[in-house]
Structures are given as structure tokens and as C-alpha cells.
């Protein structure tokens, strides 16, 4: 398959290393440039502090789940990773976040480019009021990533990636709102993948879907790794267990604990984590 959209050599190298990686030696997050590296990250809006002191490395080509009770700051943290909070009134941030070694909030860093490299999927499917085809290529066109003649094939490739091609091939020109909720979410995923992001941020992507659609989305997400780095916010602990390589537990605006998913669930180090994963609160 040809990559029509362009590449990011830094991540590509990291990914190749990651694919060759685990058997070869030391833990991945030590050996490679992390997809995200956060040091002392704090976030607030106006007088209200939402997050503080987050130190976290996210290894490339892995799935990281962010879990925690409502209002713990996990979604805010996620939106900080693609600078989606920039335009929220009163937004302030401290500490550093780097995206594959580059300072995410450097003043020379174009937020639009950041968002091209760091895609996002929301809680509820949000296709644009355009045709299915126009939806898939919306980002490609916005960033002028491909000539007009290639747009059709990008649509097909992206829809095939998410397994939606067969269902919509004969109605690319019609409205996306005729699709089921699960299909709409897959379409949004195809739209996010069409611009060839390095990282995908998911904000409870299956919370408005039925179990069958949820399974389809989860299977798909698993298949995208390690070609892609995935960070997923979820309220569903079972989903975190099924999907994530590593899980991060947030509580009260702090990152309480992080670890390999199985380790965090089976053998949590902190009292709060233990209470949360055993269902005693949350």
C-alpha cells in the first residue's frame, strides 16, 4: 500500500524499533522516544485547577487507558495532548509535554499540525453534515495532503481500514446520519485515520454504542496497534483491561498510579487504586 499522505520520520523510526522491540531487550518505554512525555503537567481553567503534577510517558505503538472517577481530570488531560483546550477561556497549563521529543506547547509548534498528527475520537459520533465521502476526506482536504485525483482512493482505503467499505461503498454521496450509531463512530474513525495520524486520542469512544458495535470498535483499535499510538479515556474498566497495554489511574486531578494493565488491576500499589479497580467507588 502506498502512503499517499506523507510520513513523520521520527515516529516511523520509533515504530520500527517498537516492532522489533520487546523480545530484544529492555522495556519499550525506556528504549524509545515516547510518543508523549509529560513532566509536571498541571492544567486549570481560570481559578479552578483541574490537574496537577502529572508525570507520564506514553510509549509509541501501545494502547494506554486513562481511568478514574468522573471529574478526575482524565478528559482534560486527553484534550491537553492535542491542544484542544487552547481556545477554552481561562485555560492555563504548567509543566512540559513533548510529542515524540518536540515540545508540544512550543510557540513554533503549529497547533493545527499537532492535531493532524494527534487525531481524536469523541464520546458521541460526530460526522459532519457532508456526504460520507466528504466526511472521510475532510481532514485530508483541510491539510491539502493529497491531490484531488487521490481523494477517492483515500476514502476507500480509510473506510476499508475501519471495515465500513462494504456497507457504504454504494452510497458514498449520501448523508452519514442515515448510518447506525456504531457505523457513524467508525466513519469518524476513518476520518481521523485518513490524515495518517501518529497518535489517536479516544474519549470514551464506545460509551454511546451497543455491545456489538463496541466489540467491533475495540477489535479495530487493537488492530491499529503498533502502527498507531492510542490513548483512550474510558469509564469501563473491563474495556481498559481488554484493550490497554498500560493503564493510568487518575483521581482528584492527580495521576495516582500507572502500570502494565494486568499489574495495575491485579496488584495495585496505592490504596485509592485498589478501591477503584475493585469497584468500591467510582
Amino acid at each position, binding site marked *: 500500500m502506498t502512503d499517499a499522505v506523507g510520513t513523520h520520520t521520527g515516529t516511523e523510526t520509533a515504530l520500527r524499533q517498537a516492532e522489533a522491540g520487546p523480545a530484544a531487550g529492555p522495556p519499550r518505554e525506556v528504549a524509545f522516544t515516547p510518543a508523549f512525555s509529560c513532566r509536571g503537567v498541571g492544567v486549570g481553567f481560570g481559578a479552578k485547577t483541574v490537574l496537577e503534577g502529572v508525570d507520564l510517558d506514553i510509549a509509541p505503538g501501545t494502547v494506554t487507558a486513562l481511568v478514574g472517577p468522573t471529574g478526575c481530570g482524565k478528559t482534560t488531560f486527553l484534550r491537553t495532548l492535542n491542544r*484542544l483546550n487552547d481556545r477554552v477561556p481561562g485555560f492555563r497549563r504548567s509543566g512540559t509535554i513533548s510529542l515524540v521529543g518536540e515540545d508540544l506547547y512550543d510557540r513554533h509548534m503549529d497547533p*493545527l*499540525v499537532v492535531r*493532524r498528527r494527534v487525531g481524536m475520537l469523541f464520546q458521541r459520533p*460526530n460526522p459532519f453534515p457532508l456526504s460520507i465521502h466528504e466526511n472521510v476526506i*475532510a481532514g485530508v482536504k483541510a491539510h491539502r495532503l493529497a491531490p484531488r485525483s487521490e481523494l477517492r482512493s483515500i476514502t476507500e482505503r480509510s473506510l476499508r481500514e475501519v471495515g465500513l467499505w462494504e456497507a457504504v461503498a454504494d452510497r458514498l454521496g*449520501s*448523508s452519514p446520519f442515515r448510518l447506525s450509531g456504531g457505523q457513524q463512530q467508525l466513519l469518524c474513525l476513518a476520518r481521523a485515520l485518513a490524515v495518517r495520524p501518529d497518535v489517536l486520542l479516544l474519549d470514551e469512544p464506545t460509551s454511546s454504542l451497543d455491545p456489538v458495535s463496541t466489540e467491533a470498535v475495540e477489535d479495530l483499535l487493537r488492530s491499529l496497534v503498533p502502527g498507531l499510538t492510542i490513548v483512550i479515556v474510558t469509564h469501563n474498566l473491563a474495556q481498559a483491561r481488554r484493550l490497554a497495554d498500560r493503564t493510568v489511574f487518575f483521581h482528584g486531578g492527580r495521576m495516582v498510579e500507572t502500570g502494565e494493565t494486568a499489574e495495575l488491576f491485579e496488584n495495585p500499589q496505592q490504596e485509592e487504586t485498589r478501591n477503584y479497580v475493585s469497584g468500591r467507588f467510582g
Partner: protein
Amino acid sequence: MATVPVGTALPTASPHPDRALDTRPSVRRRRWSRRRAANAVYWGACAAALAGVAAPVVWVLAGVVNSGLRDWHWSVLTTQTVGTGGGLLNAIAGTLVIVVGVAVIVGIVGIAGGIYLAEFCPEGRGGLLRGGSEILSGAPSIVLGYVGYVTLVVRFHWGFSLAAALAVLSVMVVPYVVKATEVSLRSVPTAYRDGSEALGMPSGYALRRVVLRPALPGIVTGLIVAMAIAVGETAPLLYTAGWSNNLPTAHLFHAPIAYLTYPVWTFYNQPYASAHRLAAVAALLLVVLALLMIVVSRIIVAVTQRHSETSSAPH
């Protein structure tokens, strides 16, 4: 609470202290018939309200169409006014020029203003603009016409002219378009904005490609209302456009221009039958013009909304 064994009839004799839970058949029947009566009363009220709205419309339309058709002659479309007789070609052309001019000016200024208020304006500054816009829309049209006459026509030496007419009419209707644009943009779901921002679309691009589209029906409706007001307005034009028996020229200044509401108002006050006939035909043409604008706006809305959330019922 005590459980009632399955199959046991509910106690019918003991009235429950809570009236809603009183399930005796007589009580239920009485309640049902009362509800039906209330239902009939409300339906009747709705029908009366509908008739109250529809009747005057039908009455006016029937009157205008009836008298207009009685005096209809195809030559009104092809000949110019002579004195108080002849045709209306000059007035039709003048009205079209004025309406298109207003649509262009108001379309640009009004939509841009609405976008600014909805998308880019800091909280504090919006109040001032909105307040000014509202005061403007509350000003009586004849006052605006008079101000236009005193300043533009007389003071600035524009004379009776297209420029003066366009300026006054545009000032008059721009608040409608600003308001319609702002309201429609604000009602666009935030999911569209989030989605386009998360894809890394520049804000102007997202506005054009994604956000503006669902707002378009509201904006077009506002623009059509503005154009309809411009078509039907008389007072400001009497003060600024003057009247001319000739076709509109390319001159913006010092060239009076004809318009359809002039014969309706002025000719009807003349003591000649030919003038009355022309007034009736002009009224008919105004109604037809308004209808055409509504049809065109509906077509625009239908075409742009074919992928929208509301027009696509789930399968």
C-alpha cells in the same frame, strides 16, 4: 405496603387518599371523559388560532390577486409608465435592481456581522453591537427615510438616487440578517466545532466547510426576510429613490428610480381609473415577487441541507 395476591381484584370500594391512585371504574370513566373534553377544547382553540392567522392571509391574497388579474394586461410587463397610465416595466426593473443591491450589501455586511458576533467577538463588545443593531431594527422606516432624505439626498447632494435608496434600505434591514446569522450559528451543535478543530482545520476553513452549512437555512431565511422587506418598503423610498418613468440607469447618484410600491401607494390616491388599475397590478406583482423569493429560498435550503442531521431519518 401490603402485596395483593395475583388474580385478586383490586379493592374498588375504598377511595384511596391519593386521588390519582383512585382506581374505581366510575372514577376512571369520569376522568377519561373529562380528559376527552379538555382535548376537544384545546383542539378547537388550535383550529381557531390557525383560522385567525390564515384568514387574513387568504383574504389579502384573494383581494390582491382578484383585482390585479381583473386589470391585468401583459403590456404592463413590457411598457413603461406614462403619466398615471401605461405599463410598469420601469418599476419592475427598478425594484429588482434595488432588491439585488440590498441583497448584496446586506448579504455581505449582515452575514459578516453575524459571524463576527457569534464566532469571534469578545463577550463585552458584543453587547454594544447587538444593542445598536436592535435599536436600528426598532426605528420606524419613515424616520430612517427622512434621515436619509435630509442627509444623503439633500446634505450630501446625492439627489433622489439608487445610492440613497440602497443606503437607507440596507441600514433598515441589516439587523435582521445579523440577528438571523448569529442565532443560526450559535445553534450549530458544538460537536461539529469540536470535530473540525480536532482534525486540525483552521477556524475559518472549519467555519466555511462545516459550521456554516447547518446554519445556512436560518441565514437564508433572514436574508429573504430582509429582501421581502426591501421589496415591500414604501416610506424610505419615497424619500430617497423618488420616482421615474424611465428604466433604471447605471447612475448611482442624481438619477431617480422607479419601484413597485410607488404606484400602489401614490397612484391609488389619484382620481383616475387607469391609475387605480396600475396600482392593483403593481400589488399583484409585489405578491408574486415575494412568493418567488420564498420558493427560491426553500430550494436553496433543500439543496444545502441534503446531508443534514435532521433531514436524514435513520433507516
